[in-house]
């Protein structure tokens, strides 16, 4: 039996625990025995993106310490998986840590990638009646090049109509610290995404990063727009009886 170690990013842990719970449920439904190590905190991305590589490295070392013995690490965020897989190698670890980093990099997976390509699940017996759009977050789309897997999972849901946004490959404007440093630009970008969602006539958008979804949801609420932005795992997990 596979024993994937769940990597629950700080935002999911503190703001969206339901995503984590749904992930446990899904992985168990697919025959895994998911592990959770409560010592975990954050991958270090906020500091990395802000240019504070030393701070990022120190927090990353904590992550590495927690996950070093895991067989497989499954991330509930495409962006945090990117941090580990793409950006850890850029941090100046000591040679000794670097070896562990190389190992960790290759055994970390974004969860939809893991479910489709590692567990081989492409079809499961759930149904949903309605239109759903998938939101491609930039890190998962352009750094990890994962676009087909989440769509495959959504298409396997009976009755679900997967709608493509006309601005599918456009950034929603979240961008981590960018959202708070340049709120006007971030909001302008988010509004365009909302307009695209409106044109698609959907009121449910799912994605692989709660952070982008939080930005879109927050914008929509402020504008009184009827929109639910949900993590794909939470959406799928809730469909399982």
């Amino acid at each position, binding site marked *: 039996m596979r024993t994937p170690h769940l990597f629950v990013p700080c935002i999911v842990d503190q703001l969206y625990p339901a995503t984590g719970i749904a992930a446990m449920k899904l992985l168990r439904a697919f025959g895994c025995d998911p592990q959770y190590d409560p010592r975990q905190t954050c991958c270090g991305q906020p500091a990395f993106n802000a240019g*504070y590589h030393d701070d990022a490295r120190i927090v990353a070392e904590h992550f590495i310490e927690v996950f070093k013995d895991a067989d497989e690490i499954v991330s509930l965020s495409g962006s945090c998986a990117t941090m580990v897989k793409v950006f850890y190698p850029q941090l100046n670890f000591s040679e000794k840590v670097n070896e562990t980093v190389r190992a960790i990099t290759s055994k970390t997976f974004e969860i939809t990638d893991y479910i489709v390509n590692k567990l081989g699940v492409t079809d499961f017996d759930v149904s949903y009646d309605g239109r759903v759009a998938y939101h491609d977050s930039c890190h998962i789309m352009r750094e990890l090049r994962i676009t087909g897997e989440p769509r495959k999972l959504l298409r396997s849901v009976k009755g679900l109509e997967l709608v493509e946004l006309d601005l599918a490959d456009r*950034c929603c404007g979240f961008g981590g610290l960018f959202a708070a440093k340049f*709120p006007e630009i971030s909001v302008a970008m988010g509004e365009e995404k909302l307009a695209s969602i409106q044109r698609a006539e959907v009121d449910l958008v799912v994605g692989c990063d709660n952070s982008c979804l939080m930005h879109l*949801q927050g914008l929509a609420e402020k504008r009184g727009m009827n929109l639910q932005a949900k993590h794909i795992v939470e959406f799928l997990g809730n469909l399982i009886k």
Partner: protein
Amino acid sequence: MNLKSAQFKLQARKAIGDADLRIKVKKATGTSLAKRKQVVEELADWEELRQKGHELRKIVVDNLDSYLSQFIESARRNGGIVHEADDHKSAKHIIYDIIRRVSADTVVKSKSMITEELHLNSMLEENGIRVIETDLGEYIVQLAGETPSHITAPALHKSKEDIARLFQEKLNMPYFDDPAKLTAAARERLRDEFLHARVGISGVNFASADTGTLTIVENEANARLCTILPEVHIAVMSVEKIIPSFDDLPLFLKLLTRSATGQRITSYVSLVNGPRSHHNPDGPRQLHIVILDGGRKRLAKHPEWKEALYCIRCGACMNICPIYQSIGGHAYGSVYPGPIGAVITPTLFNMKDSQDLPFASSLCGACTDICPVKIDLHHHLLFERREIVNRGYKSFIEKIGMAVWRWTMLSSGRLEFTGRIGWLLRKVLGKNMPAPGWTPHRQFPVIALRSFRSLMKNDTKYGT
């Protein structure tokens, strides 16, 4: 060099407030992107071409000195007069000197980003020389007393109504907002200038090291007029415009024109191999080639920053960038706006003044995907953010904040504690929860009563 980039935040906020500007920029960039898509998708080997372009640009930048001397030798053999300028000041001086020596009082100019970088026009004008920009977009921008807002479409921030008003005011013409009529008016006014100017200045898109060929790409024929009719042609380029060989031209033309304007090739491509020789019926008697370093040789030696020199100035990264689309080019406060501008302005000009630029990005990576020479643009923004922090340009408060964040994240207990305080605040303050930069633009999310880690304590497997 002092940069307007220092006021980026203010300028960006102002630009965002200008709904009109946003519509104009969106429309223009959207048109270019759609055309680009068509002609790129018809090439099955586009990805390989990009890779090849990247490799050739890398070879040149890695061996800049030797390619430079090879180019200079070839250009001199062809009869060109080559001037090397270490910095902006000496480049301007050299150009002024050439003009003065033929006692010309007017120069016609075709598009050149290097002359924009030099602020050449204002220097020449201060010295009593009339400078006439002849590219339609540049002409418009010059009439308006502005600077280009895009490297390949200088007047992209102006609507036809803006231009009609401008022409009405500056050229004493009746108001008409028909692009064809406006273009015809510019043609009529500029024709005479071309015929009488004794000096023409142009930029250079590519300079082939092996044959000394200068390649100039354009659509309007103004560059041909500037480089063929006057007695003296001054071609201004920076050191990294060099490509290894004449044989590489078809590749780079393909990458450039398809990315820039979505054309398979532009209307005109001039391959200049020297001044008029005794059996030529036309062309300038003197060809001066002014080659600017301006800090580029320094960049070429830097393991990370050198990659920005691969740029062939197609402007596609600007068109695709959601930030550029939202604020236009002027807000960047640099000759080079958009993603490549945010990458090259801090390293080439002044990092302190332009320190906001690398941060003004959501790091979406659309620029990197579109760049015809595969510059890893958005990762370079990250490298520069690190450099800006390392140089100590960031505020004390931010540093403290980062230290507190680090301290919190080194213990799951402290993370949990912080989260619970957040929950409490959200509970008490409700929708008025203050989160600088987040609210008031967006609703603050509801913080869960119990975090994932605390819920997991009840999980049969992990329960305590």
